[in-house]
């Protein structure tokens, strides 16, 4: 387990990370790779029919970027739970700022509070992760 997880005080920010811009090409790649072919993420006409100005990113793509952030920053501690609430629409053509805060620590796990903010600073994903740190 990383010393960062062991030493940090509850409430402190453990890691921050800015993703690349989520382009339409990325949405198409993700749709194909994940099997989520909902046209809301691919077809602007369908998105408008559903009440949006343009296509929006898959919430699951945002969660996948948070997951990548977790695996890159805390690779030593295996994930036992990972959850997300999609609190806002993720518009196309912007990057997300991912942030992990130490929420709680027990003898053999830590709980992280996660958030993803869009370019305007709006919270679009609020989540949590439980990492096993061993006894």
């Amino acid at each position, binding site marked *: 387990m990383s010393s960062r997880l062991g030493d940090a005080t509850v409430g402190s920010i453990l890691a921050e990370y800015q*993703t*690349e811009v989520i382009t339409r090409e*990325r949405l198409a*790649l*993700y749709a*194909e*790779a*994940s*099997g*989520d*072919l*909902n*046209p*809301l993420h691919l077809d602007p006409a*369908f998105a408008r*029919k*559903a*009440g*949006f100005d343009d296509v929006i990113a*898959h*919430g*699951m*793509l945002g*969660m*996948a*970027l948070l*997951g*990548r952030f*977790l*695996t*890159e920053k805390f690779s030593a501690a*295996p*994930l*036992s*739970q*990972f*959850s*997300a*609430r*999609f609190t806002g629409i993720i518009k196309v053509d912007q990057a997300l700022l991912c942030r992990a805060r130490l929420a709680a620590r027990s003898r053999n796990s830590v709980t992280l509070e996660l958030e993803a903010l869009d370019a305007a600073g709006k919270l679009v994903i609020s989540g949590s992760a439980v990492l096993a740190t061993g006894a």
Partner: protein
Amino acid sequence: MSAIDRRFIGYALPAFTVLLEPQRLQRFARAVGMADAQSLSVIPPTFFKAIEGEDNSSRRIIDALGVPLQQVLHVEQQFDYLLPITVGEQVRVERKVADIYEKKGGAMQFIVIESSIFRGDAQLAGRSRQIVLVRRPALASAA
């Protein structure tokens, strides 16, 4: 659209198997921008979604409930990781509608879909719980 019939609680797709081909995992890892997509040893944490979504299964559940696709939004997702799954393994997936409920006097309806993923040796390796919001047409067109 009228309220979704709560008798769909318990509706389950027939169990299906998914082979975790390395190429498929690499494609997913590249799509989410993982640096080590080529030398992947562990399953990316949200790949469960692609596993359970095999053969358009999420769409098939939404269709079975008679909900128009343009009214649905994925609002919540949880994964539980119980046992490791290996690249190349074949897993079995069970999916069912765990709950249907409404808020704001029926203006917002929610569908809870749960999946269980079993390893080749039949042990439960992971669970997924997804909440889908069904927006009423008036709300959708006003947005």
